[in-house]
């Protein structure tokens, strides 16, 4: 149990920084692209400032990510032995195609302003972005294999590779990659929106802030709509491949009835019903199958030992969806008022943007919570139960010690993060700077 908490805690914390990194890296590519195209110094200031913020976030991603590489082996030794063939290969791919690329080229982006030409610098920014996206791709493939295993065969009580392309293109990986990448773009964009809104409200560096805001707003708006599409696809996939999980999403118990959508509710797991809920009957069946009378297998169709913690999954799923729609609405409002040219006078709306940075971050976490806790009690769906994957040779004391240590250290890291980002934001961009790239 402690190992579960430790893994959940360490990966959730790590996930804050990785999503921000991916999202901001996209922004940097766009901004630097504009700089190379228009030559306007404003865009140079954009990339100078935002890349500094990016650097801080990225190093926290690295610091919190290093553990994860080893945590599979330390706390989940039996899992590692079971899936090493498949899962290990995917992690190795991630190292080669993502980590090397992003870490080396980031150094050039952050420290090479006077050492390389502006084209090579832009290329480096692109490489960093590609690298971080590759990270998302491979880890989602790995996790998707846990959810919808394919391309393997069970030999000698472990999963061995049978067909690598089937492993990579397992039934859920593509839509989940889209959904994770979209969620990252949202997170990065909203972070920039929040900081830019802060500057506009304080009437500081207005040109800089408005340009940042506009670019980020377009990224956010497009991503939020993308999330709706990829989310829908993902749910369709889950309905087909992980029906128990889907039933938990909506707290749907009856064996053979069409499924409703709840706007909110509370699942009573003993009585096997949703209470205090507001439901739209048959809507899920309609959205999933196009037929509101099509029945969807409920939790009662499956043995109880295979049920996940239903209420927890229900709540996190609904929080994510609620936030998702909220963010879409906010973005559309933003675009509307941008078109009407009154966006930057609307202080109320700007204040909402200021606090909304936390929206995608929470949505991303609750989304993963739904996916992972919804997968319980399995580590690899129907192949390995979570309880079977732990390290047998770890004493509870060791894990308790490491868990507490990580909580303390990560709390320290969070303080460091807030302190230095805040410092950078308060200092603001240096609008006197000129570019000093190496001339060809």
């Amino acid at each position: 149990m402690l190992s579960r908490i430790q893994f959940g805690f360490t990966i959730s914390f790590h996930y804050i920084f990785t999503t921000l990194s991916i999202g901001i890296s996209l922004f940097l590519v766009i901004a630097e692209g504009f700089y190379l195209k228009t030559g306007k110094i404003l865009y140079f200031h954009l990339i100078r400032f935002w890349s500094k913020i990016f650097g801080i976030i990225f190093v926290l991603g690295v610091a919190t990510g290093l553990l994860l590489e080893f945590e599979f082996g330390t706390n989940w030794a039996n899992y590692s032995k079971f899936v090493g063939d498949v899962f290990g290969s995917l992690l190795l791919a991630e190292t080669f195609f993502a980590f090397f690329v992003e870490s080396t080229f980031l150094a050039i982006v952050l420290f090479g302003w006077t050492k390389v030409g502006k084209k090579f610098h832009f290329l480096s920014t692109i490489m960093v972005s590609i690298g971080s996206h590759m990270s998302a791709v491979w880890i989602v493939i790995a996790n998707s294999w846990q959810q919808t295993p394919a391309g393997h065969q069970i030999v000698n009580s472990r999963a061995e590779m049978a067909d690598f392309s089937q492993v990579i293109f397992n039934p859920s990986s593509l839509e989940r990659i889209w959904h994770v990448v979209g969620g990252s773009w949202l997170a990065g964009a909203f972070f920039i929106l929040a900081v830019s809104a802060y500057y506009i409200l304080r009437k500081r560096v207005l040109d800089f802030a408005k340009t940042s805001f506009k670019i980020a707003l377009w990224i956010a708006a497009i991503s939020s709509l993308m999330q709706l599409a990829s989310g829908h696809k993902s749910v369709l996939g889950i309905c087909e491949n992980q029906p128990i999980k889907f039933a938990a999403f909506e707290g749907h118990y009856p064996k053979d009835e069409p499924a409703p959508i709840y706007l909110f509710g509370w699942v009573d797991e003993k009585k096997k019903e949703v209470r205090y809920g507001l439901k739209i009957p048959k809507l899920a069946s309609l959205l999933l199958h196009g037929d509101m009378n099509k029945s969807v297998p409920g939790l009662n169709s499956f043995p109880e030992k295979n049920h996940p913690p239903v209420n927890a999954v229900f709540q996190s799923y609904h929080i994510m969806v609620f936030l998702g729609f909220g963010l879409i609405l906010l973005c559309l409002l933003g675009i509307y008022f941008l078109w009407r040219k009154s966006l930057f006078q609307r202080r109320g709306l700007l204040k909402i943007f200021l606090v909304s940075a936390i929206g995608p971050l929470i949505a991303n976490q609750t989304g993963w919570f739904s996916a992972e806790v919804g997968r319980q009690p399995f580590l690899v769906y129907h192949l390995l139960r979570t309880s079977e994957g732990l390290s047998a040779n770890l004493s509870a004391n060791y894990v308790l010690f490491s868990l507490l240590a990580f909580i303390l250290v990560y709390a320290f890291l969070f303080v460091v993060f807030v302190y230095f980002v805040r410092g950078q934001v308060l200092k603001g961009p240096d609008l006197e700077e000129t570019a000093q790239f190496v001339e060809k």
Partner: protein
Amino acid sequence: MLKNKKNGKVMDLQTLWYLIITFLMAVFILLDGFDLGAGGFYFFIKEESEKKILISSIGPLWDGNEVWLIAVGGALFAAFPKAYASLLSGFYLPVICLVFCLIFRAISLEFRNKTDSRRQQKFLDRMFSTASITAIFIFGLLLGNLLKGLPLNENQEVYISVLDLLNPYAIVLGFTSIFLLVIHGLLFIILKTENSLQEKAREWIPKSLICFSLSMVVAITMTLVFYPEAVKRFNEHPALYILFVPIFISLIGIYLNIKAKKDNRAFMHSSLIIVLSLGIASLSLYPNLIYSPTLPDYTLTIYSAASSLKTLKIISILGLIGLPIAIFSSVCLYKTFRGKIN
């Protein structure tokens, strides 16, 4: 060296991946070794300007260097998952401790030059040095325990207490590693810096060389006397003992080249020492990954710990595409940041 030995012989995939992991480990120690070693030296630098220069010299490089360690972990997981699982869970507390060291090293490096507060700088300085040295020590400790062998049970799991992990042999190897990588770090600083910092680093070379030499001799002696399994391969092919000779020649080489200010050559000598030392250790271990002195039949060899042949083939192709990417990225990095720090 190892690769030359195998020339002309058809190599099985398990041996290939053993070599690949050794290679990845070697690159990691060659690269991250100098910034960790420099971190140790950092503790003794008092001049603020010198501190800033040292941090700037490794600032852009440490992250790219550290990825090679992740590659070692990933390769071990993919190629020898049973060993990955048993090693990491068996070495639980040292591995967790190592992770913390690397986290603290990363944070202190990144933020030390971003703050103006003297108090914060002092705190981060101490964190940087302590984390760097402790990380090196733990690597040496783990290597020592691997060479010595670990108790495996019938499930090939390692059950060992921290006290047992801190045995004299492992501690000696821990210190030997520290001395070696501090030398490597000093040589890197000499290459990258000028004036007073470079002078200081030069002054440190003779005593570091002596510390390492003594430590290395003790380590070799202990291995020969106490751990026959580790020297088995060398006793079977006594010609292999010749591999130790270049190490000691290079030690003298470092001394002479530093005196003659041929700094590039000196760095190459320390690189050679690192590669040879790791090669010797790798040879000693082969073909075991975790040797079990208590239940030798349950020893995890590269054959019993490996993934299926199909996986090994697939990751070999992965490596064929991935390693050039890794090397290309690293080359871009070092080309951009070549030359002295100004």
